[in-house]
């Protein structure tokens, strides 16, 4: 729709001019709390049985136990995040391991073009490989200085802050490299395949 339909009597609540307005993608609004959204019960995995794996189109898969994962070089990340349900939260503070660090442990097959993140509970989400590398994605196990809570995806979740937050798979257990794109859980249920908040790629066809 090229011309916006004006709603009688609607003024809206603007963000403070200058501070945050240019960090909030279209159709989003700022929240201070951290809403929880997930499609089913929160899985709880015994850390003794937890592992993280990189598999698929790689020469040799890589796998870490919880203890091994904790010894990988970690970084602090401060990122703005946007959920397709319209909230945006600024300056969220995480600690975890960059996907670049994880991918250094495998030799990629030249055919690898896409990544499927897979999680406890069966959740999956798909990402183009270029959206995962070069400092754009990490696996977080701390939020705001504390171990990541189960309802927010703990013990560890993928975080891909430049895409809508359903791409940041909770309870993540690994990344699978593939040649041809495969829609994940929400991507098969009407949500956009890519999910860039700045382009409002919310739903299929957006």
């Amino acid at each position: 729709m090229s011309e916006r339909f004006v709603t009688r009597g609607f003024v809206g609540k603007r963000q403070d001019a200058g501070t945050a307005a240019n960090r909030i993608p279209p159709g989003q609004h700022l929240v201070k709390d951290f809403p929880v959204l997930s499609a089913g019960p929160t899985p709880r995995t015994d850390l003794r049985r937890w592992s993280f794996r990189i598999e698929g189109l790689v020469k040799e898969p890589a796998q870490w136990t919880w203890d091994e994962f904790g010894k990988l070089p970690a970084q602090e990340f401060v990122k703005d995040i946007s959920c397709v349900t319209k909230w945006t939260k600024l300056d969220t503070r995480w600690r975890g391991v960059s996907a670049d660090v994880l991918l250094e442990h495998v030799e990629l097959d030249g055919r690898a073009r896409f990544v499927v993140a897979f999680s406890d509970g069966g959740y999956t989400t798909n990402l183009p490989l270029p959206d995962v590398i070069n400092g754009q994605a990490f696996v977080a196990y701390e939020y705001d200085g504390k171990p990541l809570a189960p309802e927010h995806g703990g013990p560890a979740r993928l975080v891909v802050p430049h895409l809508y937050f359903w791409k940041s798979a909770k309870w993540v257990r690994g990344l699978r490299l593939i040649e041809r794109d495969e829609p994940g859980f929400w991507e098969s249920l009407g949500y956009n395949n890519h999910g860039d908040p700045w382009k409002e790629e919310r739903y299929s066809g957006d």
Partner: protein
Amino acid sequence: MKRTLEWQIATVKAIRQETANVKTLTLALLKWVPHRPGQHYDIRLTAEDGYSAQRSYSIGSEPERHGEIDITVEPIRDGEVSPFLDDVVVVGDRFEVRGPIGGYFVWEASDGGPLLLVAGGSGIVPLMAMARHRAAVGATVPARLLYSSRSFDDIIYRADLDALANRDGLQVFHTLTRSQPEGWQGFARRIDDRMVAEVNKPFGPKAQVFICGPTALVETAADAAEAAGVAAERIKTERFGPTGA
């Protein structure tokens, strides 16, 4: 590529007070399509200067009602869209919507049952679409609703739920967490494991479970349903955090 969800203009056809602070808006849609019970619409409001805000609202009505949908609005203090829908909107007003959206938290009679619905507060809305759909198609799928409200007067759709219970075999179990009228026979505490197990007892592990409400309620009820033997993939949740809507 699947069809694009296009914005269309909805006209407010009726406004109904559900409780002291909750209203239902009936929206007439020219490009109405049948939804699946549990789905939602996005609403976009635009100010004179082009500033706009979007929010999602669950559909409370059944898809058998053609040409219109109900949304139910509980105004959130300091919110942006919900106080406008609650306070400013009158019958005849128009605004943009697009939908229906969401393909997971949905139930149709053909999906079978038995059906266990668990709701807290305005989390009843998408479950009401399921219950109304079940009645509209005359489905005999056994269905139970466990519904948590603060007080008797805060029960959304109370009369409609009574009617669904009396006419259509929906078994409704209320719990009132803050205050109860004299002689109250229902539950009188927050939803817990024991309550979910009791309501789900006749269904056991066969239940298909839909839970919608605030995060703490959803976490508790989902864990309780798992503890009652229901497999995780049969438990679907939708969580309403306080998102400043």
